[in-house]
């Protein structure tokens, strides 16, 4: 479906979506700098393989300014912590609050990057396919509405042009322009009602409502999809278990926790790292295999 992407994108949308939702979920509920760093780097590496360096770096300033904005905002408003760096308007700006700001910013940025990956991998039709498994009616309604948007846009242009040629848009001034647009809009509404009556008719003609509906399987669930589902389920469960045990707890206030992670909990970090880097590794091995195959030709 995503012709230009690799192995991860060609997975069945269910394991792919599950995997990314797990990572986003764990990221959003962890405060541990180690976990966030793993998630952020894993996500960024994955995004690089999807979007390409050029695209990611052109968005780099957006990500950076977003990061800085949140990192700076926190110490300005939160004055907890025991190590004041300097005073502003009589309030202390503390080291703890500053580091906590960076942590929150990293968490939001990591979640954002994973969401971006999600939107690239789970395209509209894959999402509809996923919804269709449980909510068939909703999926169909969405599919019909998505088709309608470009249609409405084109019709809007056509009606507007026809009205311009009749001299309706010639008056200057905001009110006149607004009235003109309102006329076009009312014509558009009439047209779309008319159109949907006809669409309803063809739907009936093609057996809509005649019996139990099935859904066209856009993708097939293969053995490797199953394996990947199991892989992400196990690792995610293990990470969540670690989280529940407090392995990733890290406090900023009133003073920073003494160590980033205890040596006994390092196994959980590896589990989460495997989860976060899996998409990147899948994509990269595919690319490497291609190169290798091509060099043989």
């Amino acid at each position, binding site marked *: *479906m995503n012709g230009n992407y690799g192995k991860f994108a060609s997975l069945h949308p269910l394991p792919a979506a599950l995997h990314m939702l797990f990572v986003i979920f764990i990221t959003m509920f962890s405060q541990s700098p180690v976990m966030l760093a793993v998630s952020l780097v894993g996500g960024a590496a994955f995004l690089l393989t999807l979007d390409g360096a050029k695209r990611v770096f052109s968005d780099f300033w957006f990500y950076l300014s977003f990061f800085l904005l949140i990192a700076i905002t926190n110490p300005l408003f939160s004055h907890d912590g025991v190590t004041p760096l300097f005073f502003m308007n009589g309030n202390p700006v503390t080291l703890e609050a500053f580091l906590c700001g960076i942590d929150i910013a990293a968490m939001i940025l990591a979640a954002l990057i994973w969401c971006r990956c999600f939107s690239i991998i789970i395209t*509209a*039709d894959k999402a509809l396919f996923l919804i269709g498994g449980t909510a068939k009616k909703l999926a*169909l309604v969405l*599919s*019909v509405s*998505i*088709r309608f948007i*470009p*249609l409405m846009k*084109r*019709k809007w242009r*056509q*009606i507007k*042009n*026809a*009205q*311009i*040629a*009749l*001299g*309706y*848009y*010639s*008056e200057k001034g905001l009110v006149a322009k607004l009235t003109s647009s309102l*006329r*076009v809009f*009312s*014509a558009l509404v*009439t*047209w779309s009602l*008319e*159109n*949907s009556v*006809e*669409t309803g*008719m*063809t*739907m*009936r*003609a*093609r*057996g*809509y*409502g*005649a*019996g*139990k*509906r*099935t*859904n*066209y*399987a*856009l993708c097939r669930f293969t053995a490797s999809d199953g394996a990947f589902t199991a892989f992400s389920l196990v690792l995610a469960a293990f990470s969540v278990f670690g989280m529940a045990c407090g392995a990733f707890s890290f406090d900023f206030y009133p003073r920073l926790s003494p160590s980033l992670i205890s040596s006994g909990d390092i196994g959980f970090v590896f589990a989460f790292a495997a989860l976060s880097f899996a998409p990147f590794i899948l994509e990269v091995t595919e690319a490497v295999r291609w190169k290798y195959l091509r060099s043989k030709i």
Partner: protein
Amino acid sequence: MEILTLKNLSFTYPDGDGKAIENVSLSVREGEFVVICGRSGCGKTTLLRLMKNELAPVGKKEGEILFRGQHAEDIDAKTSAGSIGFVAQNPESQTVTDKVWHELAFGMENLGYDADEMRLRAGELANYFGITGRLHSDTATLSGGQKQLLALASAMTLSPEILLLDEPTSQLDPIAASGFISTLQRINRELGMTVILSEHRLEEVFPIADRVVVMKGGRIVCSDTPRRVCELLGNDPISAGFPSAARIFSGLDGKGKCPLTVREGREFLSSFEKKSLPIEEKTHSPEVAFSMKNLWQRYERNSPDIIKGADIDVFKGEIFSLLGGNGSGKTTLLSVIAGIEKAYRGKLTVLGKNIKKYSPAELHRGTVAMLPQDVSTVFIKNTVRDDLFDICRAVGCSKDEAEKKIAEICGELSITEVLSRHPYDLSGGEAQRAALAKVLLTEPEILLLDEPTKAVDACAKRVLTGILRRLAESGVTVFAATHDTEFAAEISDRCAMLFDGSVICPSCPQVFFRKNDFYTTSSSRISRGVFENTVTTEQVVALGKGADK
């Protein structure tokens, strides 16, 4: 074996005066290709919709419809959806979903096909219709012709036993239309599919039809082989839509087998004495209506040029046709002249004044007006009358003045009866004339027409020709962009082709069409070699009458 039988069928709409269908009896054999024709409003659509239970209009029905010996009302929805395929007129409104694959699968999903069956069926049909490469495209990116083919393909996924098609090509350009018709022929020949098709573009369907049913006022007036129909109704007004060969044949009172195709037409004419029609170049007024000098246009800075150095002078009171294929930029050029789009290079002079110096009000009130391709976009009110009054008010007429003007123009365009109707309820021809009335109320000196013969039947086309001629005589310049070679040959003072962004070879129709092999009229192809310089059926008939065998 008979697959579909209508017995003494009559139908009355609840609010209608008189019967929409009156005492119709028809039986269709399996594998037959039946064409239903007649003027718009003759009951073609009602008849076709009655044949499929779910689409049957509400009203009083008498008589019987039998599908394989079973009453149509007794067939359950599932069987009906599966065994009777239906393709409607409008490609936009009969596309349901957003993706091509989903559109193909939609019917099968409704009938509960299982996953493997669906894949196989969709794959098979995508191959047959040549749309495998577009399976994952958005339906919105397809052209009208592609959408109609997709509608046909999705009807075919349910392996119907009979296909009903209600003017499926009326919204398509001639090239897409003939592509559609030949696909339909292929389905009929290769799969033995029974086809019932209502059409007004008869040139291509007559040669492939097994039977033609002609309707008038809800009755069947004739039901026979295409050849017999042409012989029987050769002098009826309905014959305006018949193939050129048949019209020439009946115009010349031919004896024997009526020709239907260009080849048969040439055989018929071959016994005639060779003759030549003098070329009539119409003298045009010396005044220029508008002129383009090296005009260039593109939509965005980085998009390709659509118009590349167009050069042309169009004179006052002239009817000028601009021909060209799909996407050749005809609509774009019209939009530039109408002041909707702007050219980025070159000069466009309208009535001796640069178009840039016009204010929008000046340009669109009394100078240039445009009838768009989709005439429904012209209307914004709930009745035709309201729409016409609205434009009069916008132009600045008093109420009495407006009433007088509207009465006058409605008489001229014969739309007085439809004034109180909703614009969307009109037939193709009526809607076009109503839209034309609205456009003409701005009293333009230059009238631009975009594909004026699309969605219009042969009779309405003839009426339009008359209207445009009268307009031109009264001094209005008519500039039409069209695909329709027959129409251009008949109406134009001059024709030109838009190719690769520039206007090529402006000349009178006789000169323009006589040498072309493909981009020409059927009459020209039929008469070539016997008669010289004849491009319309009228010209062939006129010359043929004088020629002894």
